[in-house]
């Protein structure tokens, strides 16, 4: 390693640090405190080593678990927060907006953004792209009595994503499969 490279190395590290830290998404304090109001709270924090360790216990015979093992093979983390409330209005739109605002950086693309006036179900899906490959996905689902935040870190293929949406006992919607492009178009259409 040349002297110049050696001197530049700490600077490169410092510059790369924010990009590395971009994976550590933080929940706004108001949302983090929602568990005290919630009837049911689910908090899952699984980083890479934990994921791989947990996947060792997945059965290779059970189809769901086999599918899950395949899905988490290359993932670096799964973080889930889900709050279920007894009453509507337990969280504010400002809380959700504070969460959404974290994904307004160029590294994130909002591929789905649904705002439903009649049932109050709002869903946002953000993709994190790196070298034209998906490096992460964030789902924010704000329903009248439920608020869910899912952050999956790591490479995830579109077909795997589709499997994620249709497996594990959740019935698959019988429509023609949506590509990420059509999802993005739909999102743009909604935003107009």
């Amino acid at each position, binding site marked *: 390693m040349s002297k110049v490279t050696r001197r530049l190395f700490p600077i490169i590290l410092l510059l790369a640090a924010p990009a590395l830290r971009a994976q550590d998404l933080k929940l706004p304090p108001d949302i983090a405190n929602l568990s005290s109001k919630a009837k049911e709270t689910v908090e899952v924090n699984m980083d890479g080593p934990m994921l791989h360790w947990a996947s060792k216990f997945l059965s290779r015979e059970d189809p769901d678990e086999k599918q899950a093992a395949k899905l988490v093979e290359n993932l670096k983390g799964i973080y889930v927060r889900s709050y279920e409330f007894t009453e509507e209005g337990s969280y504010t739109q400002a809380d959700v907006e504070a969460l959404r605002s974290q994904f307004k950086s160029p590294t994130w693309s909002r591929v789905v953004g649904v705002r439903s006036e009649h049932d109050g179900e709002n869903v946002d899906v953000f993709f994190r792209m790196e070298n034209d490959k998906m490096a992460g996905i964030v789902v924010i689902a704000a329903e009248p009595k439920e608020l869910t935040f*899912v952050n999956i870190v790591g490479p995830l293929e579109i077909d795997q994503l589709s499997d994620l949406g249709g497996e594990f006992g959740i019935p698959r919607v019988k429509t023609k499969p949506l590509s990420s492009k059509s999802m993005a*178009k739909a999102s743009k259409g909604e935003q107009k």
Partner: protein
Amino acid sequence: MTPMNPNPNRLEDRLRQALRREEPPDRFAASVLNRVAQNSIARDAQKQSWLSVFSQPLVRWAAFTFVSICLIAEGLHYRNQQHERAQGETAKQQLMLALRIAGSKLQLAKEKVNEINTNRPESQPGNRTPRSRS
């Protein structure tokens, strides 16, 4: 030419005398039994000398301690394995729960997008916009 035996009966007598039944000495049976008994005693003594190592209290305690340590180590190893397995099962359940939630919310997003696509009125053939085609 060999000389002929002048008295053939004498040879016969000598043979008979050589092959005659002889009674064993009086103590023969006793001495055989005694020697057999001595051999078995020697064998027993040899066995006892090996086991006699454990007759010493220090060796006995050392052996007892060694066996106890082995048993405890095996017990701890088994307990650790059980503990690790239980933790792994919990982690697996958490992972499956996280995937189920992620899957259901993505499914919800898909449903909403499909709803929008199906509810959107088909535009006139001459008035197609990029939005209506999506």
